[in-house]
């Protein structure tokens, strides 16, 4: 302890105090403060950048989800539209078919009716012509046969027989 007290030098103590004060104040002004502030600013900057990146990432994820949702919606809409179109097509085809069938049937019916009436008319015509012909034939026959009186009487008699038969 005596040695320590003997070794203690006020001169060195004085210089150490002066130098330490100089270091604290001058380095404080020119080095410590700028360094500490810069480090803090940098760390804040890094923290901000990280937060911004995190935000951007989250936004991107949101955007992606949105996009996917939109895409899914569009796809669903397309499917619906396609389905509708298909249905419409089927319906139209069915309708057209029905219409065509109806029209065909109608035409057939009409044709049949026409054929029938034509047939009737033709039959009637044939009947008329046959009757005319038969009358003509009969006239001619009668004219031929009824040239003498006897034949005439005979005919009348047969005709009368016929009537009786009826």
């Amino acid at each position, binding site marked *: 302890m005596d040695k320590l007290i003997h070794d203690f030098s006020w001169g*060195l103590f004085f210089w150490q105090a002066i130098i330490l004060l100089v270091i604290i104040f001058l380095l404080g002004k020119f080095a410590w403060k700028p360094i500490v502030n810069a480090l803090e600013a940098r760390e804040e900057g890094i923290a901000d950048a990280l937060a911004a990146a995190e935000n951007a990432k989250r936004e991107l994820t949101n955007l992606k989800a949105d996009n996917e949702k939109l895409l899914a919606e569009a796809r669903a809409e397309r499917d619906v539209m396609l389905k509708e179109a298909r249905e419409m097509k089927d319906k139209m085809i069915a309708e057209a078919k029905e219409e065509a069938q109806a029209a065909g049937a109608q035409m057939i019916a009409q044709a049949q009716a026409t054929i029938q009436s034509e047939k009737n008319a033709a039959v009637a015509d044939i009947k008329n012509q046959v009757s005319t012909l038969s009358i003509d034939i009969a006239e001619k026959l009668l004219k031929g046969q009824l040239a003498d009186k006897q034949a005439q009487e005979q005919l009348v008699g047969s005709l009368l027989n016929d009537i009786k038969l009826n």
Partner: protein
Amino acid sequence: MVTIKKSLQLLTAALFALMPLVSSAETPVVSAHDSLQTVTTETAHEVHAEGQHAEETDKEFVHNFTQHHLMDDHFYSFYADKEAHRHYGFALPVILIDNGLKVFMSSEDFVYNGKVVEKDGQHYKYHHGKIYKTNAEGDLKLDEHHHPTVEKPFDASITKNVAGLLLATILLFLGFTALARTYKSSPNNLPKGLGRALEPLVIYVRDEMARPNIGDKKYKKYMPYLLSVFFLIFLLNLLGLTPLGLNVTGNISVTVCLAIFTFLYVNFSGNADYWKHIFWMPGVPVPMKIVLMPIEILGMFTKPFSLLIRLFANITAGHSVVMGLIAVAFLMKETLSTPGAVGVSFLLTTFLTVLEILVAFLQAFIFTMLSSLFIGSAVQEHDHH
């Protein structure tokens, strides 16, 4: 961690308390042993006179050389030639405050050969590291304990340690103003070269010492002090390991000054709570308050005292052991042969120097850490009562 530190501090304190008892008990034993030896070996002495004498002087030389290295000096000596009594180095300015400023360059003769220097009609003589004011013959008027009784002027010389301090200051300024400049244009600039090593240390001081101990709100105010002390001690410790032969942080005046600064910082930033905990401890009965008061007041002084002793003792011990191990190369020459002694000395010294680099960092860390802890305890808000 804290409990270990506390118990270590307690142990150190206990050892220091016991030290005077041990040392006073040892002294008579040693002197008795010495006298016994002189009596018994008186006859044998003549036989081994030559060899014993040479060995004694070698050991003495190593001891004196180590002691001399640990002390401050007014002459920066790099190398001493024992036979020629010559010291090679350079002279440092002596600044005395004695009825005005007396400035002169020291010299080898003044410091090592007891030459009396005359300046403005005053005579000065160098004796065991101190400068005394004497008459023209250089009479120190030694008392019976060989202590000079003549007056000592205030010695503000640029001694070896002051030169070392100045060197460290210049290095700190160069290093850290350069680091500060890199951030000038943008804080995002990354430092280059030495700054790349300094920046993590600054962050280390901030994040491991200042912030956790003082608190996020108040730490910034103390950063200049903590950074200054950390880097000054660290650099001085490292300079002490270079062949410059400096031992600044192993000097009691330097550590006392550093500890006083911490003491002032702690007590000038102490808030009402801090003083209340010292003088009137809250939460304990009144008799305990009275008992605790002197203990706490003592604690105010023991905290920085432990700082100054720890730093001083660690660095002094480190330097002593390194010097001792270097001396192995010279002292063990006969028993181990020259290459053996040099090899052993080299290995041990290298190992210990590596250890000392760790100690250099550790002591700077502990001093700064505990300073910030003490400051933290003085400024923190005790809202848990």
